[in-house]
C-alpha cells in the first residue's frame, strides 16, 4: 500500500507492519540511497543533482526519521531483509544501490543476500566490518559538540554544523535516530562479525568511495571491502572526512555517475 504526497515527492509504504517514509524524484535508472545514522532531513543539493539523471529513492530506514519503529526491528539483518521486500514491493529492478555509513553497511548486507534486483552497489564510508588494530572514534561516547569536528576534514563544515542550534523537533528526531542506530550498531560496535565471510557473494560491480581523513570509519575499511568484494573499485577523496557527499559533492557525484554510466545506466 503506497500513499504519495506529490508536493514534496514523499511517499509512504506500509509493509510488514511498518510504515516507511521515502522520497522519490527524477527519471532515469533507479538509484536507491540508504542514509547514515543521522538520517536525512530532506532533499539535499547533491541528491537533487542526482535526480536530473536518475529516479532517486531515499527512504527513512525503519526506526529512523518519520518511519515507524516496528516490533521486529532487532538488528542489521532485519533492515537488509526489509529492504529486499521494499525493492520487491515497489517493483524495482536494475537498481543502483548507494549507501553511506550505516546505510552502506545495510547495502552490503542486502547485496550478500540477494543481488538479483541490483545493477551496481556503491559503498561510501560504509560501516559493517571490523579490522583489528584500526582505531576509530566511538560515536556512542562522543559529546554532541565533538561530533561535527569528528565528521569533517575541512573544519569550516564542522563550524557551520556547530553554529546551528537544534530545534526541539530536531532534538527529538536525534533521539529517535540514536535509538535506532544503537539498536543495530551498539554491539558489536558498528559491525557484523559474519559479514566479511559472505562479501564474495556480491556479483554486481561495486564502487567504494571514502574520505582519506575519515575518523568514524577509517579508510582502511575501503581497502578491506575492496579485498573482499570481487568486482570492486575504490576511489579515495583526499582531504575529506566521513561525509564525502557533503564535503566534496562534485567529486563524489562525478565518481558515482561515471561508475554507474560505465556499468549500464
Amino acid at each position: 500500500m503506497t500513499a504519495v504526497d506529490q508536493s514534496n515527492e514523499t511517499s509512504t509504504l506500509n509493509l510488514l507492519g511498518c510504515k516507511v517514509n521515502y522520497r522519490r524524484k527524477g527519471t532515469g535508472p533507479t538509484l536507491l540511497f540508504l542514509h547514515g545514522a543521522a538520517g536525512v532531513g530532506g532533499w539535499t543539493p547533491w541528491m537533487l543533482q542526482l535526480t536530473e539523471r536518475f529516479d532517486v529513492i531515499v527512504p527513512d530506514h525503519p526506526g529512523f526519521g518519520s518511519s515507524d519503529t516496528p516490533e521486529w526491528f532487532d538488528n542489521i539483518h532485519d533492515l537488509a531483509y526489509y529492504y529486499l521486500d521494499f525493492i520487491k514491493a515497489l517493483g524495482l529492478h536494475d537498481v543502483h544501490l548507494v549507501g553511506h555509513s550505516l546505510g552502506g553497511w545495510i547495502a552490503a548486507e542486502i547485496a550478500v543476500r540477494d543481488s538479483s534486483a541490483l545493477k551496481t552497489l556503491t559503498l561510501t564510508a560504509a560501516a559493517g566490518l571490523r579490522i583489528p588494530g584500526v582505531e576509530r572514534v566511538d560515536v556512542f561516547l562522543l559529546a554532541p559538540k565533538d561530533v561535527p569536528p569528528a565528521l569533517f576534514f575541512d573544519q569550516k563544515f564542522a563550524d557551520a554544523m556547530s553554529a546551528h542550534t537544534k530545534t526541539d523537533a530536531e532534538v527529538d528526531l536525534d533521539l529517535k535516530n540514536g535509538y535506532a542506530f544503537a539498536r543495530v550498531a551498539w554491539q558489536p560496535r558498528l559491525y557484523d562479525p559474519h559479514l566479511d565471510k559472505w562479501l564474495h557473494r556480491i556479483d554486481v560491480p561495486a564502487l567504494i568511495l571514502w574520505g582519506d581523513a575519515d575518523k568514524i570509519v577509517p579508510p582502511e575499511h575501503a581497502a578491506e571491502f575492496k579485498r573482499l568484494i570481487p568486482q570492486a573499485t575504490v576511489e579515495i577523496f583526499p582531504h575529506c572526512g566521513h561525509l564525502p557527499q557533503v564535503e566534496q559533492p562534485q567529486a563524489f557525484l562525478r565518481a558515482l555517475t561515471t561508475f554507474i554510466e560505465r556499468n549500464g545506466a
Partner: protein
Amino acid sequence: MKFFGIHLMPYTPLDPKAADLYNSAWITLPNTYFDRDEGHALYERFIKELVAADALGFDGICVNEHHQNAYGLMPIPGVIAGALAQRVKGRLAVLGRALPLVNNPLTISEEYAMLDQMCNGRLIAGFVRGIGAEYHSTGINPTESHARFHEAHDLIVQSWTRPGPFHFAGKYYDFEYVNPWPLPVQRPHPTIWIPSQGSSETIEWAASADRRYTYLQTLSPTPVLRRYMDLYKQECRKNGYEALPEQLGWSTPMYVAKTDEQAYAEAKPHFDAFMNRFFHLTPEMLLPPGYSSAASIKMMRSKLSSGKRTMEGCIELGMFICGSPKTVRETLLARQQEIGFGNLISQFQFGTLPHDLTMRNIEYLATDVWPFLRERVAPSPEAVAS
C-alpha cells in the same frame, strides 16, 4: 521501620586529577590508576565498616554491583556478601545484581541461592538494570535493557519457584534445562528489592499485586523521592491493595558529627569528591540510547548540564542528610512521617571519607539516630495511611 547501611566501596586513593583528565571515573578512566598494592587494605577496611554497622545494631547491611570504574569496587558483589555472610547477624542485601548485563541470569539465581543458604534466609535479593555507563563497559545493548531485565527476572524467580528441570524459552535467554542446585532457604523466594533512581515503568512493574516488591528510591532530591513514593502507593491502590511500609525504601548518603558545623566541615571535601569525582559521568555515558525513554533522556540531559554539584546544594535538595544527631534525626523523622517508607538505607561512607570518620558516622547513626526513630515510628507492618 528497618535501618540499613550500604557501602559503595569506592577507590578512595584515586588521583584527584584523574577523573577530570579523563572526563569521568567510569568506562575510560585507565585502570593504571588502580594501585594493586592498595586493594587488599581497602577491602579489609570496607568489610570492617560493614561488620561494625551490623554489630552496632543496624538491621541489615547492603552491597551493590558496579563495573569498570573508581566509583565502586564490587563488580561481583556476591564475593563481598559471601565474606559478610559468615560475620554478620542482620539482613544481608545485595542491591543489586544488574540483570540485563549478564548473558546467563541463572548464575545470579545460583549466587543468591547460595548466599541465602549461607546466611540462613537473611538475604535480600536486589534486582537492578545497572547504570547507563555499564552498557558501554559490558557491551550489552541499552535498547534491550528493560526487556532483558524483565525476562531475566522471570527466569530467576521461576528457577526458585518452579520444580526443575524445565525449559525457559525467552527472546534473550533460552535454557533447555533450568534446574538450579541449591535452592534458597526463603519460600517462595528471597525477599526482592528493586532499587532505582526513579522510573515509572519500574514502579508499575514492582507494585503489581503478584510481586509487591520493595521499591527503593536512591540518591534523589526530596521532591523526586516524594513523587516516586506516591506513584508507588498509587500503583498499589490501582492493583487493589495498600502499600505496606516495608514496600517503600529510601537510600541516601548521611553524615553525623557532634554539631552541624563540624559535620558540614568534615563531610564537605569527601562528599564533593563523591558527587563530582567518583560520580562524574558524561551524558553519553549515563544515558545511552534506549536506557530510558526518549522523553526521560531529554529531561535528564538538561539536568546534567547544570554543572558541578556542591554539598550545600545537595543538602538543600534533600539528597544528603548531614548535621548533628538532632538535625539528622529530626530531618529523617519528618521525611519518614511525610512519606511513610519502612526501610531507610544510609550510605555512611561516600567519596574519600576516611575510615575513622566513617566509623564515627556509623556509631552516631547506630546510637543517636536509629533508636530515636525506632521509638517514634511504628514497627508494625500496617498499611500506610494515605
